[in-house]
């Protein structure tokens, strides 16, 4: 009988490795009860919240923000690489969403449309200001002020490795970085990624393939040299 390969890409393992989609979502703690109820109501679709927002109600839009703010922030963060920039990008994404709410196509999925807004803003931001996450003094200060103390803090080696990862990611062109982030971190499929980036499925697969190759070669160069 054939032994299962240690590299067998079972769906469960892929899901466990790529941060599951739920890891990047969640509701804020302090929400007004009306907004919380709308945001948690799984029977209430995003399209329905858009419809109610367009009717002039405030709470449905706040519920949309609550549903998607964390995902918007993390996608932006993984592309731009800085907390403050990611906050700016997510704020701007929701402002743009509000402006173009009337143009929402109800026959398409809301998250694809919204992710496209976030991704476009993040990529624009990245092209304008090259990220400097690893060398950022702000992030160093955040790490030093971590209220969890030394016990919970990641080991120094791990922190260094993470810094290397962000540096390597930074070397990739924005179009490869976007696909890599959406697939390998956020766990979206190439079929889901294609409409978000307005590319074909084949292009999404090719960019993913090239992105992984480039990431791996940069990673080996950087991490191998370091060791």
């Amino acid at each position, binding site marked *: 009988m054939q032994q299962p390969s240690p590299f067998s*890409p*079972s769906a469960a393992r892929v899901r466990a490795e*790529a941060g599951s989609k739920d890891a990047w979502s969640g509701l*804020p703690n302090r929400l007004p009860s009306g907004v919380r109820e709308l945001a948690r109501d799984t029977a209430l679709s995003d399209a329905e919240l858009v419809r109610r927002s367009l009717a002039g109600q405030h709470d449905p839009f706040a519920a949309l*923000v609550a549903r998607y703010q964390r995902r918007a922030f993390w996608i932006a963060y993984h592309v731009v690489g800085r907390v403050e920039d990611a906050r700016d990008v997510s704020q701007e994404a929701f402002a743009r969403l509000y402006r173009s709410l009337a143009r929402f196509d109800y026959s398409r999925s809301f998250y694809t449309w919204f992710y496209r807004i976030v991704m476009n803003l993040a990529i624009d931001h990245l092209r304008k200001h090259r990220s400097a996450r690893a060398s950022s003094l702000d992030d160093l200060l955040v790490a030093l002020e971590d209220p969890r103390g030394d016990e919970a803090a990641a080991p120094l080696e*791990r922190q260094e490795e993470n810094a290397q990862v962000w540096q390597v990611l930074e070397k990739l062109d924005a179009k490869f970085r976007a696909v890599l982030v959406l697939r*390998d971190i956020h766990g979206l499929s190439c079929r889901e990624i294609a409409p978000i980036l307005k590319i074909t499925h084949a292009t999404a*697969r090719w960019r993913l*393939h090239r992105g992984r*190759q480039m990431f791996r070669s940069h990673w080996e160069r950087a991490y191998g040299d370091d060791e």
Partner: protein
Amino acid sequence: MSGRCEDVRGSLAGYLGDELPTAQLEAVREHLHDCAACRGEAGAYLQARKALQRAAMDALEEPFDDDELHERILARVALEQAREDAQPRWAQRLMVGAAAVLLASFGFWLAGRPPAMSIWDRPPTQPSGPEHVVGSPLQALPYVGPPVDLRPVGLDDGIGGSAANGFGPGMLGRGQRSELRDLVNEDLVLPQPAEQPQPAEQQQQR
């Protein structure tokens, strides 16, 4: 490195992401089982990807204030809303101003324009063209015959199609053409022009 190894290495990234068709997936799996060099290559890919995912998950554990972000986003949207509310008034003023300027310039243009000549003030023009030349072959002749009912042939004259012969109304089959010809020869009498009363006779009648 064999050609097979090259092929497999080309699709390793897709294999580890579970993005290959089943047949190709199986082929790569079998090759990895047998080839240590390609297994090492796959391991390198896995390590790089794991490092990326680990860094992302570690970032998730950094302190992050959801509520503060929610408030900031809503404040930004409120600003957008205020801008949107202010915009129609501004646009309305602009449109009123533009309309006033347009009206004023139209008034000035009208005032400075020479008075228009009425069509009744113009000299009469002579008709031109061959149909107006006396004696021309193109001169129209008046129709003097009886009133003619103009209808498509075969619509209700029993000529042309019917449910029986499979033709639609107005459609003539080969046999029906001769039928029409006979009808024309027998029944159609060309109208003779009516005699015009002479002016002298008219006067005598009076």
